[in-house]
Each structure stands twice: as C-alpha cells, then as structure tokens.
C-alpha cells in the first residue's frame, strides 16, 4: 500500500513534468491559458469522480489492449522528448539510442519493484525536482513584466493546445487513495504551472515563445545564480527536469503493462512493450517541433476522446495487476557510440566573438585567453565553426563566451537567424555593435591586461547597458554600440 503522502507526491511529479514544459509554448497570454486550464480542471474532475470506482485491472482484454497501446505511444513520445532535450542541451553529438539507453534501463529497474517502490522513489525525487525549480522561479521573478501577460487576444486554438498539455491527468485513474489528497496534488500542479507560465512569458513576452520550441528552457537559461560560482545554472536545472520527465516516462511504461497480471504471456507482452519503446525512441529521426506537432494532433483527435470514453464502458472482470519487466542485455553495445569527450585542456575557450560581413561572407574573429585570436570566414555559422576546427588544434568551446560584437555589414536579424539553433552558448552572452574594424579590439589585452570578453562584461555592467542575446531574441532593448578611444573600447 502506498501512503497518502506518497500518492500526492507521485501525482505532483507525474502530472507536472510535461505540462510545465509545454504550457508556455502553447499559450501566449493569461486569457488563452486560463480557458485551457479551466477545461483541464473539468477533465480532472471527471477522472476524480470515476477514479475510485473504476479499475483498469478489472476491464476486458480489448480495453486493456487499447490502454497498453495508448500508453506505449505516450512512452515513445516522452522517451523521444527526453532524447531530444538531452541531445540538444546536454550531450551534443551522442547518438539517440546511446542517450536513451540509460533512462530506459533505469525505468525497467524502477518499475520492477512494483507500485510501492515507485511511490518511494517519487517521494524521494519530490524535493530534487521542485526545490531547484522554486529557486529558479524566485531568481527569475524580479525580471517579470506583468503587462506581457495580458498582451494579445484570445485564440481558441491556443486554449485547446493548453488543454492537450494536461492529457496526463488520466493517471488519476491509477490511484485509489483519498480524493482530498488528489485534489491537493492537482492544486499544486495547476498553481505551479501557472507560476511557471507567469515567469516565462512575464520575462520576455510572447516573442520568446515564438523564438523557441520550449520557452521554459530559455527562461531557465536566462537565470543567473548569485555568487558566480556556477556559471551555467541551466544545465543542472535541465537535469532536474529530466528527472521529472523520467518519472512520467517510467509511469507510462508501468501503467501500460502492470494490469496484465503475472504469467508468461504478460512477460512477453512487457518485453514487447519495452523493446518497442527502445526501438522507436532510438531510431526515430523526428525533430522537436515535428514531434510536438505530431503528438499534439494525435492526443487531441484520438487519445483524449478514448481517455474519456474508455472508463464509461465498464465490466466486472477482475485480475490482479502486477509489473512484469525484464530487458537487460543491451549494455554491452554501449561502447563507441557516445558523445564526443574532450579533455579540459584540449578546448579553445572563446571569450568573445567579433563578426564582420563582406559580400555575403562572414568574417569571424574568435578571441581566446592569453591574447590569442583566430580568424575564420564562411557563408554560414556552421561553415565558420568547421573552418575554426580546421585552423585550431583545440575543440571550439562556446560555453564561456562573454560577448559578441556585430561589426560592419552585419545585420542583427541575420545573426539571429544563424544563431537561433546554436545551444552551446549561454543566452546571457552580451551583444554589441560597432563600426570599428574588429581587428582593433585585438589590442585590448595589451591596453587593459584583461581579456576582451571580461572587459566588455564589466564595461556594460558599469554603464548599465547590458543587452544579452536572450534580450535581443525576445525583442527587448537596443544593442549598445562600441567605439575605440585611445585603443580601448568605450560605450
């Protein structure tokens, strides 16, 4: 038996992880959000009302099969989502199955112990998932502009998309505990989602949502941790969010198989379920936007109606539901497909970038520590990066980039177009324009005994002209202009 506290925390994590991630990408203002959430609340009430009288383990084979297939698709969607997020944000270069494999094995491990062990795990994860999130929300709250939340009109389509985000509310059916505790969990999830939406859209408005597939991730990337010990908080935050995605992914794997009971048949069914998830997640080549669009359509037109109709077709057949999971022999193929591992001293730490354009070609200067400067040319950012690797014995590292200077002939919009898919740099990198030749900035180290990147950061801070790339992408602020006086950049 799981306790009320365990049920409440399990529900909070499982219901929150996907809704929190997508809500701010779906709605652009509070009007759109509130209508969608109202519909979701009614949907939750529906499941609360039938929850304690309806047990999936008691329904007939056909309905069980429908549930298994639906949860299989959810598991595939969430697995692919995790794979794409990790690949984009944490492990660029790793193959899909290599990234997904550990999550997959862990979900088998977590589900093998049954509902009680799962509940214990989620009870434990509760603080690790929500505490850092609250810290981020508090840090971000100071930049919220409430007027952004009411800009724009009402679009039914957006509200429907919000409602679709709450499709996971169906898992309320799997909990037979006190209704009051379930309601508390729902209040928490709805409240937290609202808070995340307010902070995300309140920081940069609807433009942010348009510029990014997942605006929440961008919001997290914009937050700076006080004290300066951790330069990029977003990586840790994303890791915590992946823990919560793991919770809902493993939940669908669990709920998709446990009601078939024990026995050889259900064992092979579980193998088929898990094997299928591994195969589909590993080898599908969908990008994030296609995945979201595809799944949204499926949920809206097929899954949600099924979720509502299935509990209404009740039968009295009873069977004990047990988890049967075993898939474990894949680890041996781990070698050789991993992300690129580069030692700390084999990286070229770019502190500032200067860009100039001439006849549709970009000339980019990479400013490195100890007065080193590497100049490359190319038609696109990808070409420039490749060119850099050809001329340097070290791996290009943009994680410590402090500033980007847009020189003569470079249109800020072109730059935005080129950089919007680049994930290696922090969104807090400062942006400048200049009419001076970029070459002139090379002398900065001699004149100030500081790297160009750090110098520009302090300069902007002193003059209160800190416009970050994140600001610019969200359409906020004017990019400050740099000039050179007596060999030193000035604003």
């Amino acid at each position, binding site marked *: 038996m799981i306790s009320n*506290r365990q049920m409440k925390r399990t529900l909070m994590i499982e219901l929150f992880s996907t809704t929190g991630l997508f809500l701010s990408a779906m709605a652009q203002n509070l009007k759109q959000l509130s209508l969608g959430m109202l519909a979701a609340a009614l949907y939750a009430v529906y499941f609360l009302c039938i929850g304690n009288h309806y047990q999936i383990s008691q329904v007939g084979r056909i309905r069980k099969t429908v549930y298994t297939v639906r949860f299989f698709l959810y598991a595939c969607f969430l697995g692919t989502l995790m794979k794409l997020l990790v690949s984009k944000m944490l492990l660029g270069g790793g193959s899909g199955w290599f990234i997904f494999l550990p999550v997959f094995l862990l979900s088998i491990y977590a589900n093998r112990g049954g509902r009680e062990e799962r509940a214990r795990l989620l009870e434990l994860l509760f603080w690790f998932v929500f505490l850092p999130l609250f810290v981020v929300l508090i840090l971000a709250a100071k930049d919220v502009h409430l007027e952004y939340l009411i800009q724009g009109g009402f679009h039914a389509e957006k509200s429907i998309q919000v409602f679709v985000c709450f499709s996971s509310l169906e898992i309320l059916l799997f909990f037979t505990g006190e209704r009051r505790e379930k309601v508390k969990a729902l209040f928490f999830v709805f409240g937290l989602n609202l808070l995340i939406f307010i902070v995300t859209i309140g920081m940069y408005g609807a433009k942010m949502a348009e510029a990014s597939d997942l605006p929440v991730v961008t919001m997290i990337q914009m937050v700076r941790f006080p004290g300066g010990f951790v330069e*990029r908080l977003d990586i840790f935050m994303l890791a915590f969010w992946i823990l919560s995605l793991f919770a809902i992914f493993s939940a669908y794997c669990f709920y998709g198989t446990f009601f078939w009971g024990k026995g050889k048949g259900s064992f092979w069914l579980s193998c088929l379920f898990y094997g299928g998830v591994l195969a589909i997640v590993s080898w599908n080549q969908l990008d994030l936007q296609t995945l979201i669009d595809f799944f949204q359509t499926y949920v809206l037109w097929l899954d949600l109606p099924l979720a509502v109709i299935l509990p209404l077709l009740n039968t009295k057949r009873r069977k004990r539901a047990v988890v049967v999971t075993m898939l474990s022999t894949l680890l041996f193929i781990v070698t050789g497909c991993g992300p690129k591992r580069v030692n700390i001293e084999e990286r070229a730490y770019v502190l500032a970038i200067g860009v100039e354009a001439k006849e549709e070609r970009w000339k980019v200067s990479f400013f490195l520590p100890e007065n080193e400067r590497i100049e490359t040319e190319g038609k696109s950012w990808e070409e420039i990066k490749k060119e850099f690797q050809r001329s340097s014995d070290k791996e290009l590292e943009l994680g410590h980039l402090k500033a980007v200077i847009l020189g003569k002939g470079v249109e800020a919009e072109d730059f935005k177009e080129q950089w919007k898919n680049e994930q290696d740099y922090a969104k807090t990198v400062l942006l400048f324009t200049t009419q001076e030749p970029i070459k002139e900035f090379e002398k900065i180290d001699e004149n100030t005994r500081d790297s160009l990147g750090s110098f520009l950061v302090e300069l902007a801070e002193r003059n209160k002209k800190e416009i970050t790339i994140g600001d610019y992408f969200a359409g906020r602020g004017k990019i400050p202009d740099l000039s050179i006086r007596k060999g030193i950049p000035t604003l």
Partner: protein
Amino acid sequence: MQIKKEISDELQQNIDYLEQRFAKCADIIKKQFSIGKYRGYHVYLMYTDGLVDAVMIQDSIIRPLLNETLEDYPKSVEEWVIESADRKQVFDMEEAIINILAGNTLLFFDGCDFAIQVSSKKFPNRGIQSPEQEVSIRGPKDSFNESLRFSTALIRRRIRDTRLKVEQMQVGVRSKTDIAILYMEDLVHEEMLADIKEDIEQLCVDGILDGGVLEQFLEKRTNTPFPQYQHTERPDKVASGLMEGRIAIVVDNSPGVLLLPVTLNVFFQAADDYYNRWETASFARVLRYISAMIAIGLPGLYIAIANFHTEVLPTDLILSFAKARQGVPFPVVVEVLMMELAFELLREAGIRLPGQLGGTIGIVGGLIVGQAAVDAGLVSTIVVIVVSLTAIASFSVPSESFRGAFRLLKFFMMIVCAIWGLYGYFLGWLAIAIHLCSIESYGIPYLAPTVHGGEEKDYVLRMSWKKMKIRPSFTKEGARRRQK
C-alpha cells in the same frame, strides 16, 4: 550426526564414552577422584584448560568434595557441597560435552544418571577498551570486547529494566557459537523478533566466527553494497537502539554488536550527537550528509565537467584547471581513476600495516608520492585535490561498513560520468535512489523517514531532546511515546 545419549549411572561407562569423544584433545582436563569419608565414591571431573577459572575450581569444587564426608550421598553433592550458585544437573551427554567446551566444569558421579555442571568460565580477554572505529569526544569511552557476557553486561548496566530480555542460543554445527538476542519486550515489533529468531534458528553452517558472518547469512538482499545491519562497538549506541525498539544481536568472539532494523539515516548518526547540544549535532549531521554526496559523486562530477560541461564553472576557474592539466599524458578519466585506485591502495596498505607504520604509509603515499606525481606531470594538482577531498569526506561518515558502499559507488559514478557526462551524473544518482528505494530492513524501508513518513526530529537535523518525544518507526505501534 550426533547420536543422542543419556548419562549412565555407571561411572565407568560415562568415562569410556567421554575418553573416546575427547581422544587426542590435549586441552581437556580429565581427572578421577575418590571422595567421601572412606573414599568409597568416585567422581570424574572435566573442563577445558584455558577457558576456566582454575582457582575457583580448586577452591569451590575440588576442596569441598575432598573434605566433606558426604554422608547423605548423592543428595549432599547435589545440594550443598559444591560452593557455587550457578550449577545445574545435566542428563544429556551431548549437552554435557558442549558445556565442557564452553568453559563449564562437569562432574560425573558414581551411581548418578546425571552430571553436575558448574559455571567456571573465565575466558582470556583484553578487558574493556576504548572504541577504535567510533571515537567520540564526549560520552562514555567503553566498548564491547570478544566476550559475549561482558558485552551483555555492558548493555544491562545501562538498562536496568526487567523488560530488557536477553535470549541466548547457539549457532554453528561445529563452532557452537553463543548468540544473544536483546530487545525491550514492550517496544519491539513481535513479528520482527519472531522473524529474526526464525532466521537464526534455520541457520545450518559450520561456524559463525564473527558478527560479520552472521550479518551476511541473515541479510535479506545480497546484491547491494549497502549494509542491512548496523555494526557498533559502543554499548551506549546499542542501549539507545534498544530503547527505540530495535533488536541487538551479540555474537560471542565478536567485538561488536549488530543492531536491526536499519535505515540509511542511522549510519549518519554518531554517538556524541546525543551528548552535544542539538545545534552542533545537527550541523555535524548535515556535514556528514554533504560529505557522503562528495565521497560518492565528486570524482564523477569532476570528470563530467572536465570532459563535457566546462561551461558550468566560472571562466577563470576552468582556465586554471586547464592550465594545471597541461602536459599530463593521460585523459581526465584515466587520471582520476588512477589516482582513486592509488588512494584505495594506500588505504588498504595503511590498514594492514602495523600501527605506526600505517600512519607512515599515509604520509609517504599521500604527501611524498602525491607531490612527486604532480611534479613528474603524471597527474594534475586539481585531481590530487579532488581525490583528497573525496577521501576526507568519506572518513567523516561514522560507520565503516557504510563507507564501504561509498568506495564502490564512487567508481560507478566515475564510469557513468565518463560515458554520459552530467547527464550520466544525474542518472547515476537516480540509479542509486531507485536501488535504495528497493531495500527494506525487516519491513522498514531503508530510506525511512524520507519515503515512509514517521518521526523526523532525529533525522538530518537532530532536534533538542525535549522535542524528541516520539520514538522512530522501529518501535511497535502504541509504544512510540518516550517522553511525557
């Protein structure tokens, strides 16, 4: 297989049988006397040399027997001649033999179908010494030793309550090791007690030479690095555990006592946490939790950051790390693995070497070889710092058996971080969390009270004694209140 044999009233039959059973046992003392006014009765005395109090045997058994006239034989020898309160009649030959080997003296009389067993145990022991593994600044300084009776006495001295029960049994087909199960009758979960007794009774092994062997035979899950019994050498810790409804198992010849059930939390509790002010104790406990995380995760985290995610650290710091690694011929993973293995080697060598040499190896290994390795460019300074910090952190956890788990998990984390970077780091912790959630100790989840609810005033923080009014979930329902 032993054949059950009754003691015969023919003394010579008993002697023949015992001579045969104890043939070629030079440590067994066997002596026949003639006693009584006319030296008309015969007695056969047996004991194990070295395990008995020879003076007591001489003064309280042999002298009275030789001096008494024994007019009312055999009633006189049964009831008043032998000057010992701890004596009893034994009718079974096998029981008599076991008692001889356990340090008692057995007397077989002419015409009696029983033997008289007199307690004369006096085992060689090293006295009561200070604990070596669980040192505390404040609080009692005595520790258990190899004698079961001394150990139970040290506990009884602290709990003078008839509700403290001591049940004794023997385990081991050959070793016949004495085992005592201690519990507070009104606090213990009866099912748990029955469960542990059944587990012990069902054991069929050659011998139990230490509590560690018994622990491994009794543990429910063998595929985990985490200990499922708490081993302690401190009587105050055992007394405190008993008063929380836990069960203590004392094994003869083992200088420690096993406490069960356990949760992860108990391994972070030091004895002096309860003797110091709660603020200081809580701070120390928080430090121990953090140090446990460092001990398991720091080398892996360094590998993940250095190999995959340099952007999480400030630029100046990362540049200084990169500079420190210039010229090191090995990749970061190999460098850290090499240093960690070298440290484990030093630790192992330090334990095996005799006292003062053990300390020397630490200094030679840690300072001289470490510095030489840095100077030679084999490892970078930052890795030396990471490995040292990991070692210091691991030693701050009070339980040695628990620290053993860290040593293994540290390498697991290093491997997953080398493969998947920070993603692997978090998944590694997730794997550990899933594993911990699956462990139970006699029905109590290993992660209680985090995942099970219950009393949290003696958890990561230790609240003041006045607030700790409820006993933890080890205690049976209905007996949880310990203060009014």
